[in-house]
């Protein structure tokens, strides 16, 4: 039995409140799961930490809003997948880890993971504009953000393929420690991916290997209920993904993915285990995306009630309320941060617009290691 299993059972035994009202029922089983989650003891946060989290989430949200605007204005192309609504996951996990030390691996929905990992927003925006100043030199685009400097292993556009790559980074940590004798090698890797991705073979192959070799890795499932137009409950035999951890003898937890403090606390526990050599964790974050699958998605399938349910649980508003309630910040302070970030993003757009295109004579550069 995992820790989370135990805490759920304890919660049930103590008659933890189940607040599933009729509205939840209409919003569907994913919403119901969230409502039935054992309410986490509100995690403590200091003012400084709280503001870091707030700033990061607002950066993610505003950045994505700007992307939508730029896409519709014809400034960026291809498939662009926005992260709105899921900010608590990126921020909660990545800010619980060490920048430029731990490793992060993403999918095509990667802008905000890159930002949380510290890739400068100018570089991310430039990449989306296909510019030479982009973090992938304009060769990658929205779905392929990379930054060795910021330990971003990349955005992977094919379902599941990033998970083994992340596993490889975790293997390197252990190899350096145990085969090369470098006691300081304690980097942990976080692999982010969606609910739909938990039905592909690589996911299971990697859970097995990670547990087998006790690799320092967090499998962070961003369960937003949808895989494009496929309802999670129609795609998988047991929708509670975190339970699959037990089959591999690893720790598994489900967490309110709209609550950055809860995500952060769960990530901290998992990172601690990983650094202590206790191996991987499967962390299922219940969340929701506020926009269509990509900017090309008409988003006609999802019920209004469902969208409303999740809109009411906006992770940014929630943190803002917590910070204000606990007198860690004032409304004005938070507003000032919002404004600052808007200005920052406006600067990124200006920077990206003015940035140079890659040189045609460098078309074939970066194929080989030597150039």
């Amino acid at each position, binding site marked *: 039995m995992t820790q989370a299993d135990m805490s759920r059972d304890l919660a049930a035994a103590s008659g933890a409140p189940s607040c599933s009202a009729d509205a939840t029922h209409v919003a569907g089983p994913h919403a119901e799961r969230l409502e039935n989650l054992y309410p986490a003891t509100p995690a403590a946060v200091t003012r400084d930490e709280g503001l870091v989290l707030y700033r990061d989430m607002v950066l993610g949200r505003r950045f994505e809003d700007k992307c939508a605007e730029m896409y519709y204005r014809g400034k960026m192309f291809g498939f662009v997948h926005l992260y709105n609504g899921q900010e608590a996951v990126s921020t909660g996990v990545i800010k619980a880890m060490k920048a430029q030390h731990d490793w992060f691996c993403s999918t095509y929905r990667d802008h905000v993971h890159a930002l949380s990992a510290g890739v400068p927003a100018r570089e991310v925006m430039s990449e989306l504009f296909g510019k030479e100043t982009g973090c992938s030199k304009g060769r990658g685009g929205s779905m392929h953000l*990379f930054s060795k400097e910021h330990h971003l292993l990349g955005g992977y556009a094919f379902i599941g393929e990033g998970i083994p790559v992340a596993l*490889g980074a975790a293997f390197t940590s252990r190899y350096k420690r145990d085969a090369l004798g470098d006691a300081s090698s304690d980097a942990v890797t976080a692999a982010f991916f969606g609910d739909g991705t938990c039905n592909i073979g690589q996911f299971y192959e990697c859970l097995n290997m990670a547990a087998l070799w006790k690799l320092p890795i967090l499998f962070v499932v961003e369960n937003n209920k949808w895989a494009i137009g496929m309802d999670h409950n129609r795609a998988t035999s047991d929708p509670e993904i975190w339970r699959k951890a037990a089959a591999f003898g690893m720790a598994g937890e489900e967490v309110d993915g709209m609550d950055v403090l809860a995500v952060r606390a769960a990530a901290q526990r998992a990172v601690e285990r990983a650094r202590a050599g206790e191996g991987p964790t499967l962390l299922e974050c219940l969340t929701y995306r506020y926009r269509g699958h990509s900017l090309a998605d008409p988003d006609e399938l999802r019920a209004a009630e469902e969208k409303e349910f999740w809109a009411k649980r906006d992770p940014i508003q929630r943190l803002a309320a917590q910070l204000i309630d606990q007198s860690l910040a004032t409304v004005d302070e938070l507003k000032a941060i919002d404004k600052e970030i808007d200005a920052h993003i406006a600067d990124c757009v200006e920077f990206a617009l003015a940035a140079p295109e890659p040189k045609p004579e460098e078309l074939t550069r970066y194929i080989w290691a030597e150039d």
Partner: protein
Amino acid sequence: MAETLLFNALREAIDEEMARDPHVCVMGEDVGQYGGSYKVTKDLYDKYGELRVLDTPIAENAFTGMAVGAAMTGLRPIVEGMNMGFLLLAFNQISNNMGMLRYTSGGNFTIPAVVRGPGGVGRQLGAEHSQRLEAYFHAVPGIKIVAVSTPTNAKGLMKAAIRDNNPVLFFEHVLLYNLSEDIPEGDYVCALDQAEIVREGKDVTILTYSRMRHHCLKAVEQLSQDGIDVELIDLISLKPFDMETIRASIRKTHKVIVVEECMKTGGIGAELLALITEQCFDELDARPVRLSSQDIPTPYNGTLENLTIIQPHQIVEAARALQSGQI
């Protein structure tokens, strides 16, 4: 010089490189305790331990991807495909990640990894175990592809592949592991991108690779008795081709035959002859000849299997026809 079996030459190369650089590691099915299905990693597990010679579960897709991630973060993994055909299950990782990732990342990451193992048509192994994936992987950008054919080049090329900072697909051949010859003592490397002129000649250029080199050698013996002087070139590098050596030979002989074990359609020879046509058209005195396997799944039956792949006598006939102006 020491008489060495091909699988041992590979083993020596891996052993020496692992001793030389602690970041070099091996991963794959049965590479550790079992020593590899063709014994290429025999005893290395005992010598280097379970992390450096990692026995993986049977999960080609994931352990190949794991090698990519390990390579991106500082290791130099050698992945063994127990049979190169199994790498069909890792096609995505080899194509999208080994091949394209450096470019897609704008040069952020390099992938110094080797994927090696037995390829080719063995003896009555049936269709699935008789694949020639060098042809399937040929179009993938960003990977080097080499095929070894002798103990000497096996060792020197393996070392070069391990030291190279790019991903290398390294094809051995199921039927060549017990080939034996004297190989140079000590540390030597062979260039990954250079063809090997096996025999100089002035009449006909034969381009081949892997096991077909030995079929060609049999044919050459016969042909030299006929007075046909063959220049035999082992391509070694299937990607990129060593066009300089190939062009120089064709400038000399003005006739070319490609002998390959892969199927004709979309094969190595298809690309090679296209390049020769583009680059050496005016040098050719006769149309180029391509001797390839049949475009069929390799049959189990021994007679049918032999009919599927090129035999030495067919090479002899083609060279004679070319030399006598019948082609």
